[in-house]
């Protein structure tokens, strides 16, 4: 298939970059220049390849490699694009941030090879996770993301960063082990149904034959999957590693963890939700999504409000936003799913921007404590401006991107008959808004402390943030047509008519049923409409269209 080599090239790029970065450790004084060169070349090539992949998929191509073990479909492309873009942003930002760490004596120049080596290895595993079509390799790659990124979490080797790294590796490894159980159950069931192990291991094949899978087995498997991969996604109550890991990792790594890793785990959950919806009926996964979603938002919102550590505040905001995405998936239907997928992108970009901004604050003030950080706008005006924009974006204010996806989710919820749930959610979002207003009023505005030298940081730490803000604004004002097309196709593949759901839950009039399902919404005319995008319609080739 044309363009399929792009998947391999992207993976090889990150792998070679990681190997080259580790190898520069032996270069002594030349390490910094060599490893930064390797790093910039790799993230630039990755962006180019990522752009080509997105263009191919937007044109309707489906990329496949290694007998279908690796694929890029619209659903995966949505997340692949995010990983590559955030990889570029955080990669560029890392250069200035780590140079500052060297200047301040926090690390040695030779430590850069370790940082960039694991940075690219982490990107490699994330790309493998979003392109994997092999169910068990999907699990292997998610587990591998933990094993590579834990070295970024524990990079500084302080007592607190080692503590965070330990909690991260133990909780996530244990959590993902639950995911393995779910994976094995799905494979075993599919193997029994298909009588072909080579096909039963491919997600695309399992989806095709999901109607013939055992309902009880798939229900249990999905519960395991949601607990397992939900741990990596940061859903409550499996989120406990997140504030520690995000706050202790170098700021660009925190951005990559929240924007990339959490979404990779989310993609795997969505892939299993598609299988489950077809095998069991959509109510089961949607109900679980709704429960985990609202609980995550409910737990995170007050914790955001009380945080006095900037990065922990952002970490809890990630928990809240992952809950919000789960809520969108739980609401279901084309609009709910489209809103959830768009929110994954929007939150990833906005959070990457904010974590990098927190890095600038840390460089300027030497602390993340919001009782000490005051008057950022006066101390470092550009950073202060970017922080205000990022905080407003995360609080869901227009014209930023998060507003669009939150508005779509709320609309989908009301339309689907979840008015009470939406009201509770909006109340909790008000607490989140208050938290960010408190952040802006208390730490960004106001007088500057005498002890902090005034003046902004260099272009290396500001330009990537400017790029991040441009993307946040762009996605808020007008979703570019190729991205909108991919989102529409991805939504279509998620809400594709569940063949079994037709049998198990006959499609009914949405008005008669207060709990719309993936299947039912396809019969309604509630096609999702994204800014700058055609309405999302169900695939014509599905059985339910008959």
């Amino acid at each position: 298939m044309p363009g399929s080599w792009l998947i391999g090239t992207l993976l090889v790029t990150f792998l070679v970059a990681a190997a080259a970065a580790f190898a520069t450790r032996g270069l002594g004084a030349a390490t910094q220049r060599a490893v930064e060169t390797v790093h910039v070349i790799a993230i630039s090539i990755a962006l180019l390849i990522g752009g080509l992949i997105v263009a191919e998929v937007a044109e309707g191509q489906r990329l496949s490699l290694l007998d279908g073990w690796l694929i890029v479909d619209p659903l995966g492309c949505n997340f692949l694009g995010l990983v590559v873009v955030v990889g570029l942003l955080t990669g560029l930002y890392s250069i200035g941030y780590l140079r500052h760490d060297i200047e301040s004596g926090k690390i040695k120049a030779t430590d850069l090879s370790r940082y960039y080596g694991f940075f690219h290895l982490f990107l490699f595993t994330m790309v493998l996770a979003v392109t994997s079509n092999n169910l068990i390799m999907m699990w292997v790659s998610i587990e591998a993301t933990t094993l590579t990124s834990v070295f970024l979490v524990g990079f500084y080797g302080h007592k607190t960063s080692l503590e965070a790294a330990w909690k991260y590796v133990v909780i996530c490894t244990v959590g993902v082990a639950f995911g393995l159980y779910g994976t094995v159950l799905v494979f075993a069931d599919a193997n029994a149904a298909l009588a072909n192990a080579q096909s039963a291991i491919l997600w695309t094949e399992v989806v095709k034959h999901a109607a013939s899978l055992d309902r009880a087995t798939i229900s249990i498997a999905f519960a395991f999957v949601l607990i397992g991969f939900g741990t990596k996604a940061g859903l409550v109550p499996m989120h406990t590693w997140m504030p520690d890991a995000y706050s202790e990792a170098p700021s660009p790594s925190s951005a990559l963890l929240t924007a990339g890793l959490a979404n990779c785990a989310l993609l795997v959950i969505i892939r299993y939700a598609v299988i489950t919806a077809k095998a069991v009926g959509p109510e089961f996964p949607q109900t679980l999504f709704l429960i985990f979603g609202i609980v995550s938002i409910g737990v995170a919102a007050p914790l955001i409000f009380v945080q006095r550590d900037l990065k922990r505040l952002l970490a809890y905001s990630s928990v809240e936003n992952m809950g919000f995405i789960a809520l969108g998936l739980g609401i279901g239907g084309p609009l709910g799913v489209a809103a959830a997928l768009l929110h994954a992108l929007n939150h990833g970009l906005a959070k990457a921007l904010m974590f990098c901004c927190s890095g600038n604050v840390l460089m300027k003030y030497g602390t993340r404590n919001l009782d000490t950080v005051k008057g950022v706008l006066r101390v470092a005006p550009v950073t202060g401006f970017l922080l205000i924009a990022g905080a407003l974006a995360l609080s869901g204010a227009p014209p930023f991107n998060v507003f669009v996806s939150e508005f779509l989710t709320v609309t989908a919820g009301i339309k689907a008959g979840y008015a009470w749930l939406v009201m509770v959610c909006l109340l909790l979002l008000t607490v989140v808004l208050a938290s960010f207003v408190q952040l802006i009023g208390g730490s960004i505005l106001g007088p500057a402390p005498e002890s902090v030298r005034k003046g902004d940081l260099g272009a290396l730490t500001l330009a990537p943030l400017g790029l991040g803000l441009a993307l946040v604004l762009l996605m808020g004002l007008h979703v570019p047509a190729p991205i909108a097309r991919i989102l529409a196709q991805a939504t279509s593949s998620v809400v594709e008519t569940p063949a079994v759901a037709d049998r198990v839950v006959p499609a009914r009039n949405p008005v008669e049923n207060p709990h719309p399902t993936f299947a039912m919404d396809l019969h309604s005319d509630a096609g999702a409409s994204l800014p700058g995008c055609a309405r999302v319609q169900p695939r014509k080739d599905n059985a339910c269209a008959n």
Partner: protein
Amino acid sequence: MAGENIVNALSALLVVTSLFVVQERQPKRAALLYGVQSFVLVSVFSALAFFSGTEELYLWALSAFVTKTILVPAILYRALRQFDPVQQPPGSLSPSIAMALAAVALVVSAAIVTPIHLPASAAFKPALMVSLAHFFLGLACIITQRNIVKQIFGYCLMENGSHLTLALLANQAPELVEIGIATDAIFAVVVMTFFARRIQAALHSVDDRELMTLKG
């Protein structure tokens, strides 16, 4: 029928050996006991291969023997020999509580496994139940133990449980997949051991109560 009984009995032996691993305070000896337990797992794979006629499982047994009976215990033994047994915090699980936990794990596993109807596991449902119970027992070890070294062993036990599930339900998966999972498990143990050593070096303790600075 005899074959099924042997497989199921060997699987039950896994739970017994895991209790020894959980109870052992000395890291080096726990590593050796883990090796013994993994040998039981290899025996289960071999018995399954013999009685079910699934030849792939002989390869699984061979790879489990190399990785889990030799490699992982050797890595753990070598890495953990610096840990002074005197400094080890006492385990928070008494033998009687550990036994009770194992019983609870078996009951929970039975409740989960009973509704599952898969041809691959029809003859070996007790073994499937034990594999899941073993997984939960490992989880209980991680949650209840204050010693971070014991938490690594807890993960190893969980991993052996899921490996048995894999052998029972997914033995026809491509060989590369089994290699991928085994490699991941080895790396997980190596990474955890690496951080346990760094924590020991930085804090002079392996007590997880020392890892409580980050809160809120």
